[in-house]
């Protein structure tokens, strides 16, 4: 098992290198002089020359890449020009907020998605199943940012129940309850599409499993239906559902960008959009790289969980 884990981590190394290379390449592809792009059109020639030397941009491409990777390994993601603070500090701070938002959305889409997927497969052909199927189609078609705006209209403007922006109240609050109140709408809006996908796929995975011979065996043993479905069938289904959850983690991390804009959530996504508009390239680079690295690590964890759950893979 540890051999497998080791192999999986080893396999991730080229992907990690590839990710850093891709980010570096994209940023190097900026048309024209990178220093001009960073400093904007008001920079004097001396400013640009200074920055070029400071960034080591007068050196050859691979030398620059190598130096850049070494710096990142030491936790140095460069300095943001618009904020005048180390990129890593800003990114880590923002990432915590994103993690709270997308983490809770991930929990919602996993738990609700799998639960309704199972129920709807167990009740196939019923009215309930049809309702679920239709809701799923609606759910995966609705833009999360539009849904978020409609939720604000309903729950903030009309019902005056929930706060529409930020992570904590500006005055007072600041405790867990306050955070949860601010979290409900954005995390739900963000989770909707992923929940739809998880319901749909876990339903179809369960339906395939419920036709298998060992389910008939379980029934021939006289087991109760809830045991047959929630234990026997689900035990096998979860192995195939896990990688889908891994993909959904990527989706909620992505979708967080829109939701953070709609709900003024102080996360990485909003930071990225702002820094693109202010052309703060170092911040974009650091933010994208940091989130991508976290996502790769998350996927290793998912693979490892799958390995724990399926003894057949362990022995291959």
């Amino acid at each position, binding site marked *: 098992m540890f051999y497998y884990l080791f192999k999986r981590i080893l396999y991730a190394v*080229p*992907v*990690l290198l*590839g990710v850093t*290379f*891709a980010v570096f390449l*994209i940023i190097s592809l*900026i048309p024209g002089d990178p220093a001009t792009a960073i400093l904007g059109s008001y920079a004097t020639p001396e400013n640009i020359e200074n920055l070029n030397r400071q960034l080591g941009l007068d050196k050859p491409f691979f030398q620059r890449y190598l130096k850049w990777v070494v710096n990142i390994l030491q936790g140095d993601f460069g300095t943001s020009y618009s904020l005048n603070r180390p990129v890593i500090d800003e990114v880590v701070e923002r990432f915590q907020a994103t993690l709270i938002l997308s983490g809770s959305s991930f929990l919602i889409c996993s738990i609700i998605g799998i639960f309704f997927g199972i129920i709807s497969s167990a009740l196939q*052909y019923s009215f309930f199943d049809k309702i679920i*199927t239709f809701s799923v*189609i*609606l759910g*995966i*078609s*609705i*833009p999360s*940012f*539009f849904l978020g*705006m*409609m939720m*604000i*209209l309903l729950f903030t403007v009309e019902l005056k129940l929930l706060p529409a922006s930020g992570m904590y109240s500006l005055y007072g609050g600041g405790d867990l309850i306050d955070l949860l109140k601010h979290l409900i709408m954005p995390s739900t809006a963000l989770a909707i599409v992923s929940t739809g996908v998880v319901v749909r796929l876990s*339903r*179809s995975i*369960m*339906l395939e499993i419920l*036709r*298998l*011979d*060992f389910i*008939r*065996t379980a*029934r*021939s*043993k*006289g*087991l109760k*239906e809830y045991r047959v479905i929630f234990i*026997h069938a689900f*035990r*096998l289904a979860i*192995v195939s559902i896990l990688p889908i959850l891994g993909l959904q983690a*990527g*989706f909620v991390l*992505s*979708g967080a*960008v*829109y939701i953070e804009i709609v709900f003024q959530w102080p996360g990485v996504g909003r930071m*990225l*959009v702002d820094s*693109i*508009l202010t052309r703060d390239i170092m911040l*974009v*680079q650091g933010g*994208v790289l940091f989130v*991508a690295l976290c996502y790769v690590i998350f996927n290793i964890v998912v693979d490892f969980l799958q390995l724990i*759950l399926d*003894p*057949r893979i362990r*022995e291959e």
Partner: protein
Amino acid sequence: MNVLFSKIIKNKLALLGGIILFILLLLIITTPFLNLSDPNAINTSDRFSLPFTSNYLLGADHLGRDILSRVMWGTRLSLAVGFSAALIAAILGSFIGIIAGYFGGFFDNILMRSVDVLMAFPYVLLALAIVAVMGPGLFNSLIAVAIVNIPFFARNVRGISLAYAKSDFMIAAKISGRSTFSCIIFELLPNLIPTIIVAFSTTIGWMILETAGLSFLGLGSQPPQADLGSMLGEGRASLIVHSHNSLIPGLMILFIVMGFNLFGDGIRDALDPKLSQGKLGRSKALTDLKKNFVFSERCSKSFLEVNDLTTKFIRNNYEIEAIKKVNLSLQKGECLAIVGESGSGKSVTALSITRLVASPPGIITEGFINYKGTDLLNINLQTMQDIRGKKISYIFQDPQSTLHPLQKVGSQISEIVINHKIINKVKLNKEVLELLRNVKIKDPERVVNLYPHQLSGGMRQRIGIAMAIANKPDIIIADEPTTALDVTVQAKILSIINDLKRELNLSIIFISHDLNVVSKISDNIAVMFNGEIVEFGKTKKILNNPNNQYTKKLIKSSPKLSLVKKKYNA
């Protein structure tokens, strides 16, 4: 093509999607001819006009521009951008997939590792990075969304190409001296088209959403040009006071994406039945009875008696009678063999007894199954669950697929024990080990902790038998228990079943197509053909002196029958 069309028509949701797309098509074609006002004409005196007022059917936005006209033109733009992005992703992705799959080796490695890298990014972040470099703008966001979706096409196409590259017709084409180019274009590509169409139709909705999303963030279309996403983004500023400004473009996006998703699902189901979701039915816990099923009035005290049992398979108004008016009886301690060729209805008979026939499509239309004075067709699920595994248990044909693949065999056995009685853990473990010893497993302490895939076929079938005898049932129904095993293992399993039958005074219904096997174990034989029992009687009598034409043929076709005859003559 006609088949595809009719399949989509039949699928109600896909039809709905098709209608939505048709309406959209009409809209974008007619927009330029509709005499709409200029979508960019600013008229500040009419700012935020409400829908259905003055000259504005859908109201006006924060600059007094006609929302109806803007939504119509915005829809055109959004569709064009989403469609182009999907097309670019499909072409580039398929190209990469074909090269990687067809040539394999080095190309495959390099290309697929690059695709892995692209997939390592949460997709919007990658799109953001690309837009960051190229600068905000509609064209740039289109390119970004296309690049982000390349991996999906590349992976799908590569998988299929890889399979086709090694297929006989491709090898034949290569040997015949045709150029690589011609092989790919004329042999490989036509086979990939369905895959590409399915991938395209299921992702285009997403891509429209993604391009709208980037515009919403202000990174796509730049004013005054507006697609639906940027209209929604602009509307957000006045969301609370003038919600119609965001509501209308938002609903339009929902409408479009839903149309594409519904239609895309329909195309996928029609082109690739394997991928279709939810078309495969699950089976219910009890086989359905026919509507208005007439229960038998008969009262019988016999051990097991099956009367006029009829089970049908019904699917899409097409029905087959799997078994017709089957009559059987079994006494305590007796072994009844049911023999016949594949598809003769043996298994359906066996499964119908405790209503385990998969339903749908199975349905019992007639009959009476008396077990010790109870009609098994006339009891509820709970009562049936008390009988299954406790009074009547099963041994199935293929222990590879009939045991739970991820559950230790020990726990699969203990499960059937605790399901029917209350027992403490220590006793339970002892009982499980004892059961394993009963089926002649030498080191039960080790075997209980193994998974089915770690056992041989013969060992797995012993586990199946141990489960079946766990609660000392009255009747064991063995559905071809030795068919999947090789001959020497077969003999061992048979002797185990025979020994247990004697020790526990079991009644057995033994199903097989093999007369040799049956002759060794059964007291009575029922011969089935085409869903009906054609002959029923003492084993010896039927084997030595068959009446029915089919039975005679069956005996003739059995390879070692001469030996059997000798045994019974002796």
